[in-house]
């Protein structure tokens, strides 16, 4: 058990992945000598060499396109997209090629590629550095979309993603890179919760609160605040957005009868909308109130001086929870 920041936990997990399999390679912009702009790949090129930790030209489509070629040759690329808003030049290769190639090949091709994306706001960044594009990928068949919320999950989930034979979009909550918790680095990976399972983070009885990535900590804090008001929140870290662990979600909602989905992403057409539809269909007679979403408004990401108003925070989550009691 050691105490690690989320960034360092990812770094250690990536190191394990490189040690585990000689075919694993890391590629991206500034991932080598610099160690990535968030230092997630710090020291890896020094220890594993330039052939395995590759500083690529500055072209995101090229990163994913060549990663596909490497995978076809038997390699297991872990790609870094430097910031959420920079993924779109690679969107075509991800959606048109990466997600579909196994299907097109009738299963003869496998593409074990991880695409790491630091996502979300809250760090006072300029435009295109604070976005939450995860639902665009969750909407795309053929991609597994996961997100870690704390250092312990960061450490295990990045290793699980690296071992997956399917493409994995791995969303890292960038404002939590510096959060620290204990990480069981000596625990066997086989004992870890599978990456496509949700986790009940805080058990509760009154309202189910679903979240992932940067909102996990915020929702856990909301549960503490709600408890002082006499309300018991059950906070679930979804961890996997595609596929969704609906068994865990439905079991909780059947118990509580109320559900609030929290994410930084725009609510329109988002993960929360999908969950609301599924929960309404499967838990209709258990619901005491409609499923509510707490997320970003349907505007582009605002200038950072406004982001505290744009992003869900503890108070907006509690407001959402309160509203489920108004029906």
């Amino acid at each position, binding site marked *: 058990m050691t105490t690690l920041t989320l960034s360092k936990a990812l770094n250690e997990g990536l190191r394990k992945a490189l040690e585990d399999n000689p075919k694993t390679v890391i590629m991206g912009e500034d991932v080598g000598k610099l160690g990535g702009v968030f230092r997630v790949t710090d020291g890896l090129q020094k220890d594993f060499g330039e052939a395995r930790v590759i500083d690529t030209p500055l072209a995101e489509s090229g990163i994913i396109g060549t990663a596909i070629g490497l995978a076809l040759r038997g390699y297991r690329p872990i790609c870094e997209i430097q910031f959420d808003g920079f993924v779109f030049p690679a969107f075509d290769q991800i959606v048109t090629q990466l997600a579909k190639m196994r*299907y097109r090949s009738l299963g003869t091709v496998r593409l074990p590629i991880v695409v790491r994306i630091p996502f979300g706001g809250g760090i006072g960044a300029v435009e295109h550095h604070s976005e939450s594009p995860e639902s665009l990928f969750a909407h795309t068949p053929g991609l597994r979309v996961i997100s870690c919320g704390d250092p312990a999950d960061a450490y295990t989930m990045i290793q699980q993603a690296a071992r997956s034979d399917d493409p994995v979009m791995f969303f890292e909550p960038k404002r939590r890179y510096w959060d620290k918790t204990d990480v069981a680095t000596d625990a066997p990976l086989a004992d870890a919760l599978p990456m496509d399972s949700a986790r009940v983070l805080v058990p509760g009885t009154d309202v189910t609160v679903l979240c992932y990535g940067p909102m996990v900590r915020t929702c856990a804090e909301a549960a503490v605040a709600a408890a002082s008001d006499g309300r018991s929140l059950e906070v679930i870290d979804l961890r996997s957005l595609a596929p969704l662990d609906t068994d865990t979600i439905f079991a909780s909602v059947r118990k509580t009868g109320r559900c609030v989905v929290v994410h930084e992403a725009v609510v329109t057409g988002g993960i929360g909308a999908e969950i609301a539809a599924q929960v309404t269909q499967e838990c209709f007679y258990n619901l005491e109130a409609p499923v509510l979403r707490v997320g970003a408004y349907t505007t582009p990401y605002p200038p950072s001086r406004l982001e505290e108003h744009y992003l869900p925070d503890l108070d907006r989550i509690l407001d959402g929870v309160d509203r489920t009691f108004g029906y």
Partner: protein
Amino acid sequence: MAVKDAGRAARSAKRAPAREPERQADSPELIQLLTPEGERVEHPDYPLDISVDEVKALYRDLVIVRRIDFEAIALQRQGELGIWASLLGQEAAQVGSGRALTPRDMAFPTYREHGVAWCRGLDPAKLLELYRGVSHGGWDPTEHNFHLYTIVIGSQTLHATGYAMGIQRDGAVGEDGEAVIVYFGDGATSQGDVNEAFIWASVNNAPVVFFCQNNQWAISEPLERQSRVPLYQRALGFGFPGVRVDGNDVLACLAVTRKAMQAAREGQGPTLIEAYTYRMGAHTTTDDPTRYRLSAELEAWKLKDPIERVKQYLIRTWQTEMSFFDEVEAEAAEVGVRVRRACLEMPDPQPLSMFDNVFTSETRQLAAERAEFAAYLDSFVAEEAAR
């Protein structure tokens, strides 16, 4: 002033004479080993030691792939294929380059590389599956080292370059090395992915040959819409050699591709080959080229037919008997019959198979959707039985 200048620039651009394809084709940099009349010529950089039997084998390939193409067009016209992308006119570029590959080399095609597919040993019926709508391709790329057809323009150039980077990491460059060839067209050279692939291949010195079949037309858009410089010259800006070869000359395509592939295998990095050719047919069976190009152009290119010149060469230089040509025709006809039969006998896929192979292991969600759809289909059977 600025406005006036802009206007003048626009006018002068309009007045600028369109580059003559003929002049480009006859320019000194076009590598040719067999003239349209079937006369063997030498090129100092591309000596080709080839036996008559080898030429005959190339001739056989050319005739057969044209026949497969012909059969596929007919099948489309008869409603058996949804669409077909004809390779008519590009047989030499594809057979010449395709036969320059070793079994260990890897090829990344577009959707028109039926001739390359033939050279790699892929059953032509597999190609028809895609155009009939029975599968999206579905062959195992490792079986013939021939990747799936890529339909989005230029995407595969990056896959080929990444694959070549894998060859480098496997230590498979050098003596007895491996290399990759990737096919694309003149239109694709405008794609960002193709330009990114050039950069990646260049800075990594990757063992990949970029084989551009410049067939002059990207559906309705002539080369002038894609480039102001001859395409092969683009390579210079990226830092690797570019060559232009007579794409209707199977011997030149063979020699030029062999040399580029060998250079790549030995660690000398990428080459861009521009095979200068012509799309004799429509872009696909849904296209109507009479809307955008003159028949005179087509007539001029007919005189440069890639098959006829090999035939003339075999007759005049090697006194090949007519019986050889008859045998090849007969064999091609047999292949045509086989392809037709395979197409007509192709079963539609089972409805539930659409849930297969989305992931390496089925997710709970997909399993549930599969079960839901199966139950829905079964409900019709039950309804039928109740009647």
